[in-house]
């Protein structure tokens, strides 16, 4: 079952004054896939997400995306600090409170509901950020380096959490990261945004689908390492290209 929607970007350009950030960028994200965009800091990864979501107005190009049916996971805590977690989720769940409570129960997150975001650890807040993005089954989920400020243990936990949520109905996830291992591990497809050409300079298919074996092995760090070894050459290539 794939409920995700396609994302198609054509000749997208964007500049800040005289500085060109994106230059005639083309990208196609297949429905129901987890597609990562890798690039160095300042290359315009987050800008691209903002353009897709409509948070930043486009200057040139075409973006075909179901903007009415998307959600966004920000890098940092994006909950209203003045409301409890439950109230935050209620506000953004668009009347899907039953679905929300079912997810919360399943992932045993009930105990945090009445707390204000400041009392939660970074990992738990990000877990709720991810959970919020899946409530209401949006077809396209945009993620802006959602794991970047977490330690490795929290990251592993959230990788599993994300994949479990994704596995529910397979929405399209388009996420940007500068962590190549993370991208290789989580995605079906990877695109590389080049700082020099200001467009997608490389694209590769990692795997067609995420098999359950991979999902199961996520808990085991060793298995994850073994899995990543298969892509060592891609890792090297991307590292070289980024640098």
């Amino acid at each position, binding site marked *: 079952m794939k409920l995700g929607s396609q994302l198609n970007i054509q000749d997208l350009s964007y500049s800040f004054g005289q500085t060109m950030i994106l230059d005639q960028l083309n990208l196609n994200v297949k429905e129901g896939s987890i597609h990562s965009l890798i690039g160095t800091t300042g290359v315009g990864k987050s800008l691209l997400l903002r353009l897709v979501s409509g948070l930043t107005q486009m200057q040139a190009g075409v973006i075909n995306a179901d903007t009415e049916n998307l959600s966004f996971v920000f890098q940092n805590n*994006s909950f209203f600090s003045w409301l409890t977690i439950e109230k935050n989720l209620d506000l953004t769940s668009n009347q899907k409170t039953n679905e929300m409570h079912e997810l919360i129960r399943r992932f045993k997150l009930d105990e945090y509901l009445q707390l204000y975001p400041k009392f939660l650890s970074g990992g738990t807040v990000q877990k709720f950020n991810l959970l919020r993005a899946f409530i209401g089954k949006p077809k396209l989920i945009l993620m802006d380096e959602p794991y970047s400020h977490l330690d490795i243990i929290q990251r592993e936990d959230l990788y599993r959490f994300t994949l479990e949520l994704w596995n529910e109905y397979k929405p399209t996830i388009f996420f940007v990261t500068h962590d190549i291992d993370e991208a290789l591990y989580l995605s079906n497809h990877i695109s590389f945004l080049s700082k020099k050409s200001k467009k997608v300079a490389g694209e590769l298919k990692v795997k067609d689908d995420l098999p359950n074996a991979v999902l199961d092995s996520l808990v085991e760090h060793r298995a994850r390492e073994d899995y990543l070894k298969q892509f060592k050459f891609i890792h090297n290539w991307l590292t070289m290209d980024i640098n």
Partner: protein
Amino acid sequence: MKKTFVSLLTVVVLWHTLIFFNLIDSAFFPPPILVIKNLIALFFEDNLLSQLLYSLKRLLIASLIAVPLAILIALLTTHDKKIDDSLNPIIAFTFPLPKVAIYPLLLLIFGIADWSKITLISIGIFYIIYINFRIAIRRLLDSQACEITKIYKLSRIDYFWNFIIKGCQVELLTGFKLGFNYGLTLVVVSETSTSNNGLGYFIWKSWDQFKIINVYSGIFMLSIIGFIFYYIFENLIERTRHKFF
């Protein structure tokens, strides 16, 4: 609270000491204990309570006009550039004016009855709440929280209540704290002339009749009201800050 009383008590003790050693004239600086005794007598036996109620009524009506208006205009100017471009220069031009300076004008327009006083007090409260609220909304609109409202398409009611009002509650409470205390000042100023009731009138009349102790009692009454406002809002601000910021 304990520290507040200790500092107030220090002032009272110092005052009494200065009188005791004849360093100040008790005719012009009556001992605080006598002022309090006189205040209690005036409050229960004379008509100080009714004077206080007149003043509070003016402050209340002025607040009921100024607060929603300040909130509405701050919302409009922060959300609509055209409205901001047309209203903000007027507000920026009139804000630095001492509000008391326009009182004669208000007397001309509204007459010497209550509305000229209420308008003066409203104007004073309006600016303080408007400026505080406007800064708070701008901060909120620049934050990532605002992007959440766009991504998840919050309803207008949720946007207004759960995002704007609750997100700006510390600044709003600060505006209320400053606004009501400034409003109280304007109540007294407006009552000192063209009035035959209110605390301002009482203080001025006592001065006219050279009842110095009554002047002090009136001032003391004002301080108590100001202190109550200040203390309530200060407490609310601190509670709000510690709760979730």
